[in-house]
């Protein structure tokens, strides 16, 4: 217990120090979003049926997949800190577990798990008894969430030491994220539109709910699972040591003869040798394939060819911190006269060489399977390839997220930056901008068929050339500032707006929140809200992509209305945060 208490105190102290300034605001923003989700979960508890079990399944998947996106999860206290103390692994795991309960995410999850108490009263029967069961069920269920997350990160950490492991982890993670995005497809496919498939109830995420519904054995099962996970984590912790080893197979000689070719050669070697990058690309590929393939469960093949552009967009989003990932190595092109142009162009070229062949292969293989639409798929794929190759370096020099130098990444290779929130925001920003770069091509392809491909090639080339030029200018003008940011994690002139995006100078978390809200507000508002409502009122049910049309009768209008409200709220937050920041700046 002494170890656990000490670690808990240590974590509280660290959180107290980071609870101010930007980090604090980021925590507050994340916490707010979490509270909204938690409130939604508790509302589901009043509906009965398996909705609550499904929600908890999503929460658990979130705990598993979250660390992949946020750079390795909560690492306030790292196992490496204590490796010299010689603690037995199980005591260390128990101590770290106790400390892992301290924080925003576990607190939010515990609130969401209060739905168990609500569910207990809704289940009827001897209500008092069940509500009493809800308290241990909440705690045990939370312990399962936290431990599953820890074990997943530990397994991934070990997987990322070998190429096969990195590829495997990328496939699994991409599949899980795609599943989260398309969960409704499976819900509809298994539950025939009216209910959640029954097996969800029996997933470990649903055992707490089973317990409060009178199956008291589930409490015991939770305890057993916790003991097993703790044992697994302790075993994995003792294997976590040092940095990931890159592969050291034969080296092909560099054949480059010009500066630009040299950068391409360097980048391509880094792409193939850095397992973190291998993981990013496999992740993007798996995400594209699974996301586009998911509607096959409903017998709809139309989304399948879109795996190609989805892969490109996700690859751009995963690699958007291009300069940040290399850390302070930026000093080399800075110290070399005239090297910035070669550096940006070479990186663009290497990115394209890495991503384009896979994307084109996907498009060429999958489009005939779905029987077209050829012009639209090819137009969009060409446009996002150029858009990605242009936007990735541009974004990475404008909204650089300072990262840990590769050699200091330590035992958690997913952790490439200390600033998880900013990385996540960057990923969303990139998804939005790269997708946007395909809008002209998509529009023309829809209206005029094959002309769209020409437009896609043209906008792609324009993005590649123009955004590359902007990135190069920025790098030349602000190179030392970017290097300083990378070195220290701070912007040299906190007073000036850091970028030419029209957002005012505001903490990164708020900036990220604004970008996410403005980028994605349209999805709930227009297709899932307004269009779905029109369909519901027309009686056109079970329509391809519109969640409300799949709901049982009583839920159709509330879901559509809820989506509209969510969209409006997102735009509201996206407008209000910059407004407040501008007002404060004056």
């Amino acid at each position, binding site marked *: 217990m002494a170890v656990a208490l000490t670690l808990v105190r240590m974590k509280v102290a660290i959180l107290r120090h980071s609870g101010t300034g930007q980090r604090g605001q980021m925590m507050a923003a994340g916490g707010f979003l979490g509270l909204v989700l938690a409130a939604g979960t508790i509302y589901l508890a009043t509906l009965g049926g398996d909705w609550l079990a499904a929600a908890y399944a999503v929460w658990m998947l979130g705990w598993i997949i979250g660390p992949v996106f946020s750079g390795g999860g909560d690492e306030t206290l790292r196992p490496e800190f204590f490796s010299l103390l010689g603690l037995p692994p199980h005591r260390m795991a128990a101590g770290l577990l106790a400390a892992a309960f301290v924080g925003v995410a576990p607190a939010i999850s515990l609130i969401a798990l209060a739905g168990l108490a609500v569910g207990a009263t809704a289940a009827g029967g001897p209500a008092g008894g069940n509500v009493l069961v809800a308290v241990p069920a909440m705690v045990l269920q939370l312990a399962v969430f936290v431990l599953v997350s820890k074990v997943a990160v530990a397994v991934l950490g070990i997987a990322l030491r070998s190429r096969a492991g990195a590829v495997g982890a990328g496939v699994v993670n991409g599949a899980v994220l795609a599943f989260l995005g398309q969960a409704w497809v499976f819900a509809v496919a298994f539950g025939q539109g009216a209910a959640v498939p029954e097996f969800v109830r029996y997933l470990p995420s649903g055992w707490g709910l089973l317990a409060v519904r009178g199956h008291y054995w589930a409490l015991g099962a939770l305890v057993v699972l916790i003991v097993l996970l703790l044992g697994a984590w302790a075993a994995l912790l003792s294997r976590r040591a040092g940095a990931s080893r890159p592969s050291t197979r034969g080296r092909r000689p560099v054949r480059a003869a010009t500066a630009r070719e040299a950068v391409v050669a360097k980048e391509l070697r880094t792409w193939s040798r850095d397992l973190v990058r291998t993981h990013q690309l496999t992740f993007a590929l798996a995400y594209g394939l699974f996301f586009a393939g998911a509607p096959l469960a409903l017998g709809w093949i139309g989304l399948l060819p879109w795996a190609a552009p989805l892969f490109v967009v996700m690859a751009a989003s995963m690699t958007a911190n291009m300069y940040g990932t290399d850390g302070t*190595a930026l000093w080399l092109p800075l110290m070399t006269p005239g090297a910035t142009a070669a550096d940006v162009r070479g990186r663009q070229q290497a990115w394209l060489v890495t991503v384009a062949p896979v994307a084109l292969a996907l498009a060429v293989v999958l489009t005939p399977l779905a029987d077209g639409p050829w012009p639209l798929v090819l137009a969009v794929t060409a446009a996002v390839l150029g858009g990605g190759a242009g936007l990735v370096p541009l974004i990475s020099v404008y909204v650089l997220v300072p990262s840990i130098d590769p050699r200091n990444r330590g035992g958690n290779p997913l952790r490439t930056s200390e600033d998880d929130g900013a990385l996540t925001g960057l990923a969303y920003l990139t998804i939005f901008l790269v997708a946007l770069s395909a809008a002209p091509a998509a529009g023309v392809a829809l209206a005029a068929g094959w002309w769209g491909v020409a437009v896609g090639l043209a906008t792609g080339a324009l993005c590649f050339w123009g955004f590359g030029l902007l990135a190069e200018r920025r790098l030349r003008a602000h190179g030392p500032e970017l290097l300083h940011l990378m070195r220290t994690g701070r912007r040299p002139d906190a007073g000036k707006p850091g970028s030419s995006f029209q957002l005012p100078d505001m903490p990164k978390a708020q900036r990220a929140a604004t970008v996410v809200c403005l980028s994605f507000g349209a999805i709930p508002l227009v297709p899932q809200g307004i269009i779905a409502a029109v369909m519901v009122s027309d009686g056109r049910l079970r329509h391809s992509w519109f969640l409300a049309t799949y709901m049982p009768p009583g839920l159709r209008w509330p879901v559509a209305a809820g989506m509209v409200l969510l969209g409006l709220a997102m735009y509201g937050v996206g407008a209000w945060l910059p407004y407040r920041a501008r007002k404060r700046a004056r």
Partner: protein
Amino acid sequence: MTPSPALEISGLSKTFGEKVAVDHVDLTVPRGSFYGLVGQNGAGKTTTLSMAVGLLRPDHGTARVFGADVWTDPSRAKQLVGVLPDGLAMPERLTGREVLTYLGLLRGLTKDVVAARAEELLSVLELDGADKTLVIEYSTGMRKKIGLATALLHAPKLLVLDEPFEAVDPVSAATIKMILRGFVAGGGSVVLSSHVMALVEQLCDHVAVIDKGRVAVAGPLAEVRGEGSLEDRFVELVGAVPAGARGLSWL
């Protein structure tokens, strides 16, 4: 007209938030000199050197390399200077030879020149056995040596080295010293920072003591240290009282 010095720093200043890291530093490094910059940790050595070579923008002041202003005429200045920064990353997933090839081509050297120079540098620095090893797997000493190789690759006239001997084993240190002495003997100029006084006394002919962001004293080594050792003079200048004298209560 006298030829411009190898490095001329005047009035360089940098403030981070509240902290004045470098406060109007003036230094002149004569051509052909071996110049040592000494100071405690946090005295402002790294910040000064970063500003002097163009890796950190100063708040005020100028830095000139053989008369070329680092901030207004960067391409000329950066052609003449080779830099070994302390603790910055390299292209980590390349082997030593690949790093040198990449940088040489980036500098605009031809393929053959790059290959020949890389071969020679690797063999002189005793890195040629590590052709299969990526830089990320290098030891600290090897990192310093490959860093020195990148600084020398384009035949600079001035070397600016930040802590080149920190955490380097004696054998590697001897190699580095030999190369630096040879470089100065051949007409080059070297500026290095260190907090090891004995090393500076052994290598350098000029020295400057930096304390709390200012130059406490600068000039030829013999003038600066006077009668005693450089270490005595340093302690006297920075006014540090060794705190360890009291010992630790539980030992």
